[in-house]
C-alpha cells in the first residue's frame, strides 16, 4: 500500500488539485472565455474588432480608462503609505497592540462596502461632516463638497481597500526576522536606515502582493466610484455595467471587460517573473 502511493506523488498532488481546478475551469475560465468571444462579434454576427477599435480610438473611453488607472495607482500608493506604518506597528508591537490594530482593520471588512460608502456620502456631502468642520474655519467656500469629485472617490476607496493592504503587509513584515533589524541597529543604523535597508527590502513580497491586490480591486471597483463619483465621473466598471444593461451593447461591454482583465494580467507577469528570480 505505502509503496503504491509513494510511487506517484505527482498523481496524488494532481488528484488533490483536480476538484479545485475543475471548479475554477467551469466557473471562471470558461465564462471568461465566453465573454471574450462576445467581444469579437459585430452587429450582424460576423467577426469584428470594432469594439476594441472603438475602445482605443474614442477619446471619451480612453479618458474613462485613463481615469480608472490613474485613480487606482493613486489609491495603491496611498494605502501603501498609510498601511505600512500600521502593519509595522502591528507586526512589531506588543500582542495587545497587534490585536487592536487587527480588530480596527478587520471590522470594516465585516460591513458591506455599500454601507461603508454611504458613510462617506454623509461625510463628503454638501452639508456633510467635512464641510461643517472646514467651513467655519474659512478654509472652504459654502457649498463645498468632495462628493462627486475624483478626490472624494480616492479618499473613500482608499479607506475601503486599506484593510487588504494592511493584512497583506502584516504577514510579510512578521516574516522578516527581527534579529536582522537588531543586527542593523547594533551596527549603527538608525531607525530610518534600518527600515529602508533591511525591513522594506525584505518585506518586498508583501508590498508587491498588497499593491497588486489593491490595484486590482481598485480598477474593478464599481459601487464606490458610482456612489461617490456620480454620473459625471465614469469609471471602467460602471461603464461596463452601463454597456451591458442600458445600451445593451454586449460586444463593447465584453471588450471593456477584456481590457480590465488585461490590465491586471499585465501586472501579474513582471511580479511572477520577479518572484521566480528571487527564489532561483
Amino acid at each position, binding site marked *: 500500500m505505502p509503496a503504491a502511493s509513494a510511487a506517484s506523488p505527482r498523481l496524488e498532488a494532481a488528484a488533490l488539485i483536480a476538484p479545485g481546478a475543475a471548479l475554477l475551469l467551469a466557473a471562471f475560465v470558461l465564462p471568461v472565455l465566453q465573454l471574450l468571444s462576445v467581444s469579437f462579434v459585430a452587429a450582424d454576427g460576423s467577426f469584428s474588432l470594432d469594439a476594441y477599435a472603438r475602445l482605443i480610438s474614442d477619446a*471619451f473611453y480612453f479618458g474613462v480608462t485613463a481615469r480608472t488607472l490613474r485613480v487606482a495607482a493613486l489609491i495603491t500608493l496611498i494605502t501603501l503609505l498609510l498601511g505600512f506604518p500600521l502593519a509595522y506597528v502591528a507586526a512589531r508591537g506588543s500582542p495587545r497592540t497587534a490585536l487592536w490594530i487587527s480588530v480596527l482593520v478587520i471590522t470594516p471588512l465585516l460591513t458591506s462596502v455599500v454601507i461603508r460608502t454611504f458613510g462617506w456620502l454623509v461625510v463628503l456631502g454638501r452639508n456633510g461632516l467635512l464641510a461643517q468642520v472646514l467651513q467655519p474655519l474659512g478654509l472652504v467656500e459654502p457649498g463645498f463638497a468632495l462628493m462627486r469629485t475624483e478626490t472624494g472617490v480616492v479618499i473613500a476607496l482608499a479607506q475601503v481597500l486599506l484593510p487588504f493592504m494592511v493584512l497583506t503587509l502584516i504577514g510579510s513584515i512578521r516574516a522578516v526576522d527581527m534579529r536582522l533589524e537588531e543586527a542593523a541597529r547594533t551596527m549603527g543604523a538608525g531607525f530610518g536606515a534600518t527600515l529602508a535597508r533591511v525591513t522594506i527590502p525584505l518585506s518586498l513580497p508583501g508590498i508587491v502582493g498588497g499593491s497588486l491586490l489593491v490595484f486590482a480591486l481598485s480598477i474593478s471597483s464599481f459601487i464606490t466610484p458610482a456612489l461617490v463619483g456620480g454620473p459625471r*465621473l465614469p469609471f471602467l466598471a460602471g461603464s461596463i455595467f*452601463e454597456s451591458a*444593461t442600458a445600451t445593451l451593447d454586449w460586444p463593447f461591454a465584453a471588450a471593456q471587460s477584456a481590457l480590465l482583465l488585461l490590465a491586471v494580467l499585465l501586472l501579474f507577469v513582471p511580479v511572477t517573473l520577479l518572484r521566480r528570480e528571487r527564489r532561483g
Partner: protein
Amino acid sequence: MTLVRTLPALIALVFAATASAQQTLVINSFGGDYEKTHRELIITPFEKQNNVKVQVTTVYSADTVAQLRAQKERPQFDVVHLSGGLDATAAAEGLLQPIQPGQLSNYKDLYPIAMQNLASGRGPMYHIAVIGLLYRTDKLKPAPASWKDVFESKLAKHLVWTDVSNQWGMLGFLMVNQVLGGTLDNVNPALDAIKKTLPGATIVSKSPEIQQAFAQSDAWLAPYAQDYAFTLRKAGLPVQFIQPREGAPIAPVTINLVKGRPNTELALKFIDYTLRPEVQAGWANAMRYSPVNKQTKLGPEVAAEVTVGEAAMSKLVEIDANQLSARRAAITEAWKRAIAK
C-alpha cells in the same frame, strides 16, 4: 434498527415536501417603498388567494431586459414589470409572450391607451406616471409654468437632472429636448442647454438621490414624475408637481408575460389581478400612480394628485417607444459625453 427509526421520518419528510410543492411565480419589482406597496396590494393577497408562492427579485427595468436577453434559452421570470418603453424593446427581441384581450377579465374596463400595444406583443400598462416638474413651493413663487423655466441661470445650483439610464430621467430629458426644438435624432438642443447648467446643477441616477438632493443639498427644482412629489411630501418636504404648459410625457409602466415559461395561466391571473380597480385605487392612494382602470374609485384629494379620465389622458405627450428603443443607445452615448467632467 436504525432504518426502522428513520423510515417514518423519511416518509413524513417526503409528504411534507410534496405538500409544500406549491406553484411558484417569479416576478421583478423595483425595491424600497415601491416593493413594499407592491407586496401589500398585490403579491401577498395573490399568494393567499391562489395558494401559490410569488418570488420577487428587485431589479430595475433596464437590468430586467438585460437579464431576459441573457436568459433567452431558459427564462427565469414569469411576469416582468417594465417602464420607459422597454416593453417595446423586449417584445421586439422576442422575449415576451403576446396577451390576447380575452385572457384578461379586466380588459373591458381599461382605458384604450393602456391596452393599445397588446396587438404588437407588449403587455398592458398598469401604472400611468406623468413626467413634469417637481418644485419646492416655499422657494419658487410663482410656480414654474414652462419646461424652459428650468434654464433660468439663478436656478442652476438648485436644479436636479436625472441620468437617462433611469427611464423617467430619459423621458424628462426628451421632453426638454422637444420643447427646445430637438428630435429623437437630434438631442443637441437639450444637451447644450443642460451643459450650461453644469457644474451648478446636480445629476443623479436613482430616485432616492432626488429625495436626498431636496432634503440635504438645497435642491428646488427637478424634472421627474408626478407620483414622486407625493413621496417627497410624505418625507416632510414642501414639494408640488406641475404639468408645464408645453405638455407632460406619459410614463407608463407595463406588466408583461415572459415567453417560454410553463405557468402561463398563473402568470395571466397575476396580470389580471394587477389590473383590478381596487388594486389600482390602492396604488393611487399609496403612491399617486394614475390608474388604468376606468372603474377605479378615488377620493377627491387623491384624484387631484393623479391624472384620471380620458380627457386628462389625451393631453399627455406620448414619446414613441419603438423609436426610442432604436435610438436609446445613441442618446445615452451623447448624454454620457455631454455630462462627463
